[in-house]
């Protein structure tokens, strides 16, 4: 060793210290009472211990000198007392055999180190320590000396890969010592509020590292692409009717929760996930969530993975995902550095998707409503109906703004009422003003799985409304509204109009005229000549002029007067209701027998009544103008068309 240098000095000091320590230890083992009230003695209670690089680190609480604090084993750790980190050399720790809840006296000379950036003070040079034995009994029921957790400093820490602290050339050379352990045991995580936990930006990484249940300690930041309601399948009351099981409670029921609010989210790597949130009793609030949440950033925590679904198993979900692919902005690629991002044109569409669900109380979904909409968000691309008809593919999601002309519920009796489809007949300016051979009106089938808010269903039945269809499905020449399609009464603020003519359609609309291309379940306009009346089905009856009740009775007192039981009153001037089937000869479809069922006093019946004659002969040959009709059936052999006169909204 270099003579006169620091090393030589340390050697000498070390030798002296070593003999002092062995003398101390000798004193401890022999029952010489060492006064503990001497000044400079530190009394601590151990809370937690672990080992790091051969040093035993004990997180302790400094105790006051009062014997009461020392003696009560079960004393609750008071918050005011300072927390210290006490370091013990390996030999000292072995000698003390300390473990949590032990109280230790630390005699001088000990040293205190105050670190620049870490927490509380660190106590070192603790060779002269003695454990305080609380009572005579404690010796006998001493718990076995358990293993102490070893804290391994990660390479990332050694090589300073995550932290942004100052470099090596700093004055306080002791800043590596006593740094808080980065690896938290299970018991620590419960004390850490979610706000402090790391925010991830990869869904895949979250699922793979956190597992299927309980994402503790970390949260993932995603962009909400779509908000919609799904009918809840669990908790359905199923009962069998004949051989057909009925399933799924009706989606428009108001009381029991039967729809679930769901989000389709996308992370910074372009990966999608469907998040199933809370049940709602009706879809009413969903529209609000839609406008407030779509496009915003959201932090998810405490989710559980319901399933990992693939393209083949969830066509509906993936048709929606495909409509959002490729991403609007370049996405990150795993393994790349943070700043660079890949161009997305070469990336193939996702083939799998995780479905996440709220995991009871642990779940947190925090939507950052204040922030601006993310650049990753892709609002629905609005097309005109004409453009949609020209789409080549199948199962393509499309969004459009159209006027609903007529609504019809499916009446097939074999299908239970809550599973029946609703048909909406829609049009827009591009179909109306088109000269070529495109239909003027399109039929949109709304499946039972498409959740409609009560507001929509109420509005649709009353008057002709413009409705925004978001993410409807186009395929096989039909537009259908299924799961994840949302119907809104207002155009969303953010939607990209891909050349669509969004001008409101005012004025009367034209229907396609009945011709050889007319199909079942469509609506058309009919003109022709009356060639016959089906007298066997002709029927007329009085109805109450107040409530419209068609089942009037004869008044018991006065048999000439009609009485309505529904509004409990005499009907003095009843309405006349009629039902009639009329055969027409239509020039546009001259070979067919056209049968028009008139279920009420609509245009045709009123026209016939205006002739002021009930003779069938006078009716024959009468010209009938454009009637709006619903096509029940079209058959070629025999060539006949069964229509029903309707009133447009």
């Amino acid at each position: 060793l270099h003579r006169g240098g620091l090393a030589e000095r340390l050697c000498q000091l070390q030798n002296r210290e070593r003999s002092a320590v062995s003398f101390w230890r000798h004193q401890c083992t022999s029952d010489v009472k060492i006064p503990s009230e001497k000044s400079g003695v530190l009394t601590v209670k151990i809370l937690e211990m672990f080992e790091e690089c051969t040093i035993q680190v004990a997180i302790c609480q400094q105790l006051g000198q009062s014997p009461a604090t020392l003696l009560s084993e079960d004393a609750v750790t008071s918050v005011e007392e300072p927390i210290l980190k006490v370091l013990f050399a390996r030999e000292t720790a072995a000698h003390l055999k300390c473990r949590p809840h032990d109280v230790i006296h630390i005699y001088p000379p000990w040293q205190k180190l105050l670190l620049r950036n870490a927490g509380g003070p660190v106590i070192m040079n603790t060779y002269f320590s003695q454990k305080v034995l609380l009572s005579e009994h404690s010796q006998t029921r001493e718990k076995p000396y358990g293993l102490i957790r070893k804290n391994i400093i990660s390479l990332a820490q050694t090589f300073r890969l995550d932290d942004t602290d100052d470099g090596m050339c700093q004055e306080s050379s002791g800043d590596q010592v006593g740094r808080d352990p980065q690896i938290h045991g299970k018991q620590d995580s419960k004390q850490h509020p979610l706000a402090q936990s790391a925010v991830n930006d990869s869904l895949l990484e979250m699922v793979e590292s956190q597992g299927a249940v309980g994402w503790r300690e970390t949260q993932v930041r995603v962009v909400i692409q779509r908000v919609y309601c799904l009918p809840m399948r669990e908790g359905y009351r199923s009962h069998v009717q004949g051989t057909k099981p009925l399933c799924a409670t009706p989606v428009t029921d108001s009381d029991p929760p039967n729809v679930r609010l769901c989000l389709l989210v996308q992370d910074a790597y372009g990966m999608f996930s469907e998040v199933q949130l809370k049940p709602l009793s009706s879809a009413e609030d969903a529209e609000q969530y839609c406008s407030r949440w779509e496009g915003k950033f959201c932090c998810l925590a405490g989710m559980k993975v319901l399933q990992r679904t693939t393209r083949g198993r969830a066509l509906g979900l993936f048709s929606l995902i495909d409509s959002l692919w490729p991403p609007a902005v370049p996405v990150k690629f795993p393994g790349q550095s943070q700043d660079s991002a890949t161009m997305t044109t070469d990336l193939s569409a996702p083939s799998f998707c995780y479905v996440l669900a709220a995991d009871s109380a642990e779940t947190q979904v925090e939507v950052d409503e204040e922030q601006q909409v993310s650049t990753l968000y892709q609002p629905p691309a609005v097309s005109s109906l004409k453009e949609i008809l020209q789409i080549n593919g199948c199962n393509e999601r499309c969004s459009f703004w159209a006027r609903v002309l007529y609504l019809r519920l499916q009446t097939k009796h074999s299908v239970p009422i809550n599973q029946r489809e609703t048909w909406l007949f829609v049009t827009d300016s591009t179909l109306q003003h088109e000269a070529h051979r495109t239909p003027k009106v399109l039929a949109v089938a709304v499946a039972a799985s498409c959740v409609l808010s009560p507001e929509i269903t109420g509005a649709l039945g009353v008057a002709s409304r413009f409705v925004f269809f978001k993410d409807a499905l186009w395929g096989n020449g039909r537009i259908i509204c299924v799961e994840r399609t949302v119907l809104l009464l207002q155009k969303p603020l953010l939607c990209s109009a891909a050349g669509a003519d969004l001008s409101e359609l005012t004025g009367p609309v034209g229907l396609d005229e009945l011709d050889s291309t007319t199909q079942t379940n469509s609506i058309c306009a009919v003109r022709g000549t009356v060639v016959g009346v089906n007298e066997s089905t002709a029927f007329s009856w009085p109805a109450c002029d107040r409530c419209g009740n068609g089942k009037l009775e004869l008044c018991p007192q006065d048999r000439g007067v009609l009485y309505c039981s529904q509004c409990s009153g005499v009907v003095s001037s009843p309405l006349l209701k009629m039902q009639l089937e009329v055969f027409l000869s239509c020039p546009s479809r001259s070979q067919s027998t056209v049968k028009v069922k008139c279920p009420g006093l609509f245009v045709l019946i009123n026209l016939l009544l205006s002739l002021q004659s009930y003779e069938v002969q006078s009716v024959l040959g009468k010209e009938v103008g454009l009637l709006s009709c619903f096509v029940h059936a079209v058959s070629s052999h025999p060539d006949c068309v069964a229509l029903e006169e309707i009133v447009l909204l």
Partner: protein
Amino acid sequence: VPDDLLLGLKFIFGPSAVPALDLVDQRSVTRIVSPSGRTAYQVVGSSGKLYTCYSSCHFCTCPAYGFSVLQRSESLLCKHILAVYLSQAVGACQELTVSEEQLTNILLAEDEEEG
């Protein structure tokens, strides 16, 4: 340097303390700077061998570092890294300016040796 500090060093760094202080006494640590501001440290080991220590993180090319620090997690650093810190603290660091190319060679040469 007060005795307390020396004993503190001994407590924390254990067996590395005395050898590191010896290296400081012998002025074995050189701080190498290049015109762009990049730095590295070189320490003459006890056997005369030259070891390179990084300034941005704890790294040393000596075998003890690879074993005790990286592999076994037994120590926080090796005696050379500690010597670098201590030399800085007491101002016993030698300074040397080299060209960019030379510094690059110093940093890369170690890889080639081990590779």
